[in-house]
């Protein structure tokens, strides 16, 4: 029932043609201090029905990359060089070449962005119904009763009582309700791709869980293609099929969720995982990464992570490594990834799962 109304029609799924392909994408900002290189040389294919998490700290370029895909960056930003290709059924478009009006159509009906549920993601003087109507009409849909039916259906899908919500102003809703309304609004025009920027940040724990359950349902039952942007590794572990670690504007590691969490090959990914505790399970020794993220105007030479990296060698100071295959579906941009592998064999990760779950240990390196 939900599948037929909210989900993707089966014809949308072309396993060999990714709905979204990013090739060599760069984003820079002109500032008084100079050019900020927020995203550098990002290439990644997003497969139909897959969920990809972009993880990294503030300034890593993950949000900029998300905004670049729907071209919502401020005017001082330039996306070049780079190609973003979007495919739906037999249609193939170059997102960066779309005109303003084509871009507006693309934004909600092909690729919807779900922002963090702060109040400013809404127009504060419009009721939920008016926001939906506005959106639909802006995209040329004027059948009011049909729009209302669709909205009611979506609000029920995100487990809200339409009667209570549809005529409410944003400020009358709690944070969790606002996030669910945003999700319902994003689905209004039946997009193929959803980009979710910090979908659970600033929500209470139990509310986070209801949002995670909802997103899992969208993923598992309705096969939406999704990009999660989060500083919280737990969101990636809970929701992603694949994870991309970003550092100083680049993807430095890309792999399945298990690759990234149990077999990381980039020292930065390893550092992040060793810095984050789990709740269930025994005590984990945690370590922080020395130093702080780089100044994007004056990036270090060579590998941008080398000043903070314990594996750094002379080569790292001079040459920036490209992503190379380190496993079947796993790539990392590190000259010394074999050293990282050896280090993990010497000092295996002590994740919560290892302490608690039997049979999981065999999948994890070094145990």
């Amino acid at each position, binding site marked *: 029932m939900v599948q037929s109304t909210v989900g993707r029609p089966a014809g949308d799924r072309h396993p060999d043609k990714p709905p979204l392909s990013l090739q060599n994408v760069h984003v820079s900002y002109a500032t008084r201090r100079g050019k900020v290189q927020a995203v550098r040389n990002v290439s990644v294919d997003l497969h139909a029905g897959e969920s990809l998490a972009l993880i990294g700290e503030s300034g890593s370029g993950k949000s900029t990359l998300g905004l670049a895909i729907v071209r919502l960056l401020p005017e001082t930003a330039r996306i070049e060089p780079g190609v973003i290709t979007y495919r739906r059924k037999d249609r193939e478009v170059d997102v960066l070449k779309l005109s303003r009006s084509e871009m507006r159509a693309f934004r909600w009906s092909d690729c919807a962005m779900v922002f963090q549920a702060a109040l400013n993601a809404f127009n504060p003087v419009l009721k939920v119904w008016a926001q939906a109507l506005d959106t639909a009409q802006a995209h040329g849909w004027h059948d009011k009763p049909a729009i209302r039916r669709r909205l009611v259906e979506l609000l029920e899908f995100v487990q809200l009582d339409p009667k209570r919500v549809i005529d409410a102003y944003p400020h009358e809703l709690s944070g969790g309700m606002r996030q669910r309304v945003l999700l319902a609004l994003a689905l209004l025009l039946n997009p193929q791709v959803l980009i979710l920027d910090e979908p659970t940040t600033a929500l209470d724990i139990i509310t986070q869980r209801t949002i995670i359950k909802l997103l899992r349902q969208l993923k598992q039952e309705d096969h939406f293609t999704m990009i999660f942007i989060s500083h919280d590794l737990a969101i990636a572990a809970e929701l992603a099929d694949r994870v991309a670690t970003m550092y100083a504007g680049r993807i430095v590691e890309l792999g399945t969720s298990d690759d990234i969490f149990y077999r990381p090959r980039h020292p930065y990914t390893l550092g992040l995982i060793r810095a984050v505790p*789990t709740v269930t399970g025994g005590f984990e020794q945690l370590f922080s990464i020395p130093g702080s993220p780089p100044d994007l105007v004056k990036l270090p030479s060579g590998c941008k992570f080398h000043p903070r990296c314990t594996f750094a060698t002379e080569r790292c100071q001079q040459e920036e490594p490209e992503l190379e295959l380190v496993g079947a579906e796993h790539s990392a941009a590190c000259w010394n990834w074999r050293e990282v592998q050896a280090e993990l064999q010497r000092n295996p990760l002590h994740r919560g*799962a290892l302490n608690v779950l039997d049979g999981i240990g065999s999948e994890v390196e070094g145990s």
Partner: protein
Amino acid sequence: MAPILEVRNLTRQFGKGRETVTAVDAISFAIEPGETVCLVGESGCGKSTTGRMVAGLLEATAGEVLFEGKNIRQLDSNAYRRYRQTVQIIHQDPYSSLNPTQTVRQILTAPLLRHRKVKNSAAAEARVLELLEIVDLTPASDVIAKYPHQLSGGQRQRVAVARALTVDPKFIVADEAVSMVDVSIRVSILTMLARLKREFDVTFLFITHDLALAKYFAWEGRITVMYLGRIVEDGPTQRLITDPRHPYTQALLSAVPEADPALAQHKRQIELRGAEIPSLLALPPGCSFHPRCPYVVPGQCDRTVPALEPVEVGGRVACPVRKQDAVSLLV
């Protein structure tokens, strides 16, 4: 050992008339010297209000705060000043808690001179450099001349810690002290705080919404869980994390997203009867968790506020229905 800090029936209300909100409702707990206690809960549970009352920044509506056995409202002015120095608070946001127009030198020198911790400005300078070394802001001679905007979030939070240390506190309330700091840096700040605890005998009340951080920081200490102004459960961290007894604690622990795909898959999902947290303006009668609780006993849970009672496994639980029953958090 006598507790360094004790609160008895501590209560704080905001607003008046029908708009009165009881943010903290008659809570009692004690903290021994050298102990690390984490106060956890979701927004609106009263954890920050409690922290502010403990630090003397907010007056209690009822109940008392005892510091080293003495009620802080009955101290004479000298003793009160000593208490305000001995108990320091570190706030969440290092962007708004440091004066942007002052250098690190000015920020740290002022309290040293004001509280006569040093004799003259030369001694102050030396002490500031020493404090910067203690919080791992090196080279101290570079950092001392900087303005807050020239520092990263993590470095600012270290300055905030150094400022708390200027007055030689024995007790530090850390209110979401690392929540705004990047994950890669968080651990180093927690490690630094843990070192202060050992080297300077500082007792910590660590307030956070992040159970994973609470577990890590207070592994040898205790966790107190609050819900809508009341303590629902407390106990040694290792017991509370592995064998939670209050249905709310269980729901919270089962809901926490885990940074580990296998754990995320194997977490037990506790279904609540209601997703939304009730408003403090219209608190449910009896146990405030009863409208959401999967184990609710009608006629009991909706009538009387359950007392916080000791459990054999350690700590206290405010749930007569479920306090004997262990629940596995994994499937």
